[in-house]
């Protein structure tokens, strides 16, 4: 083929300790230039610590990483010249207005006063914040704050953008808006490293995903590969009449092979990779006169991914508490 794609982010064996706790335990990452890469894991798995090291806010205790070819320790200043960070806590100043936040960052990035003001106006407009421009950020909703946060990250177009759980705590509408923004950013060629707890978020946005658990990358691949390796989604069905469950079980197992009986006497579930087959199975039930209260066909949740990959569910892990303590 032609020349191999260049890597925007390259990490080998990154380690970070907080006291006696190893928050990041040898993380390797390779993120292609211009791609969206998801880092998926539960709270405290080491996602935030990894991103903070890559953004030069934390010094790694071991391993090394390069962002756009610059070493994150010895060439930290060069790294800072090309990246921007949207942290888990909104990285904007709550005591200023939305407009002032953007002008402040424009000035700090080297824009002249007039240019900084013009840029702020342009971003407020693009991100639907023009009506709230003169309001203090502490009075913003969660979604507005996130949008401002992302706008602040692109006052000057970054080559690499770190997004740490950009939609945690947002309602579905705000979440979709943030997703649209991320897609637009990616379409313009910005490399994005996206930390998230949600498999569907990584699935929607990222072309590559690393699953991280207890500070280690435990699986890596495209969303499709990952889901395939995890054992797919599941069809959940709840019947109107529990009496009909044996009949439903018989019909479903003909379509989908393995059927589980849930603790709820009216409910069944079956692993199901293929939406068409799932739909067919449901249709089969109603054709046979089995009354269905509700059904769903879901992707595997993060929990299921974790269960499949690690054998333990994705419980909150301990390092988050430590990170918060250190940050307090």
């Amino acid at each position, binding site marked *: 083929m032609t020349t191999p794609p260049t890597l925007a982010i390259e990490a080998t064996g990154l380690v970070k300790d*907080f006291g006696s706790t190893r928050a990041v335990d040898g993380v390797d990452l390779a993120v292609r230039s211009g791609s969206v890469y998801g880092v998926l894991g539960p709270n405290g798995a080491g996602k935030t610590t990894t991103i*903070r090291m890559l*953004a*030069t*806010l934390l*010094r790694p205790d071991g391993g090394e990483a390069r962002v756009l070819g610059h070493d994150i320790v010895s060439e930290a*200043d060069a790294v*800072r*010249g090309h*990246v*921007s*960070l949207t*942290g888990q*806590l*909104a*990285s*904007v*100043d*709550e*005591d*200023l*207005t939305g407009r*002032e936040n953007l002008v*402040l*960052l424009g*000035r*700090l*990035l*080297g824009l*002249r006063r007039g*240019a900084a003001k013009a*840029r702020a106006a*342009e*971003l407020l*407009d*693009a*991100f*639907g914040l*023009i*009506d709230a421009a003169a309001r*203090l950020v502490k009075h913003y909703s969660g979604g507005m704050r996130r*949008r401002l946060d992302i*706008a*602040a990250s*692109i*006052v*000057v*177009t970054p080559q690499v953008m770190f997004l740490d759980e950009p939609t945690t705590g947002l309602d579905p509408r705000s979440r979709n*808006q943030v997703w*649209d*923004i991320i*897609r*637009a*950013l990616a*379409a*313009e060629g*910005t490399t994005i490293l996206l930390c998230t707890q949600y498999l569907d978020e990584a699935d929607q946005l990222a072309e590559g995903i690393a699953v991280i658990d207890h500070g280690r990358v435990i699986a890596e691949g495209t969303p499709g590969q990952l889901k395939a390796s995890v054992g797919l989604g599941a069809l959940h069905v709840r019947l109107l009449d529990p009496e009909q469950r044996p009949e439903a079980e018989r019909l479903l197992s003909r379509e989908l092979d393995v059927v589980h009986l849930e603790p709820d006497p009216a409910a069944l579930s079956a692993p199901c990779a293929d939406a068409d087959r799932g739909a067919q199975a449901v249709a089969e039930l109603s054709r046979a006169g089995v009354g269905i209260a509700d059904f769903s066909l879901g992707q595997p949740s993060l929990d299921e991914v974790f269960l499949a990959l690690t054998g333990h569910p994705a419980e909150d892990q301990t390092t988050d508490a430590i*990170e918060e303590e250190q*940050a*307090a």
Partner: protein
Amino acid sequence: MSTAPPTRAGASSVPEEAAVRKALSSTPRPPRPSALAAALTFGWRGMLKVKHVPEQLLDVTITPVMFVLLFTYLFGGAIAGSTGDYLDFILPGILVMSVLFTTVYSGVALNTDLTKGVVDRFRSLPIWRPAPLVGALLGDSVRYVVAGTVIIVLGVVLGFRPDAGVPGVLGALTLVVAFAFGFSWVFTTLGLLMRSPNAVMNAGFMALFPITFLSNVFVDPETLPAALEGFVDVNPISHLVTASRDLMEGDPGLGEIGVALGTAAVLTAVFAPLTARLYRTRV
């Protein structure tokens, strides 16, 4: 049944992908700002906060105003024979005190910043590393001037007429603000070490009350027990107060001014690098 078409509530406030793309594609990276420009921008940020929450100036001026009124009218007669004489004595001291109290808020503000995510963004910017700190203190210096001006204006209203007039007063104010700039590095260090803004405030005032009261702000040290007098005489704040009094009286002593500025320089030399280091390394 309503026949109105479904409206997209707040459609105008929804970011449009095309607009986002346009906003994204248009800004090349300018050359990074100079150290001074970055620091001044952070100073501007401090000013904006005062603009949005002017009450924070009230906090730091009410106590000194109370002290002026309380000490002048309650103790003035007893300490100095007349309230007018005492006002001449106490006002430069209260000026020092009120400005120094304001410095605690530099530490409080820094600590408050750290509890928010915004510091992460500042630290991920390609700017002169200490710019946020130096800039914040430059901004705070404006607050020191405001706090000082309030006290001087109050004094003039109550009948304070310094011999050296306006130039003397301005000289004293400049000296006090310069000292405060150095002194506030102590509180920025404290602000990076303590766990909460309230803890910084409490620790700050706990330190400031004895150090300002055990000086020549309120009384002539010669009336004190010998051990205490010894402390008061070496207390740099006493020297600052004396220098301010002398400036206002038109009889500036270079020695006292030198001690005050020297102390400020030493505090800056020790605590500014310490603050910068803590700010850089704190998780």
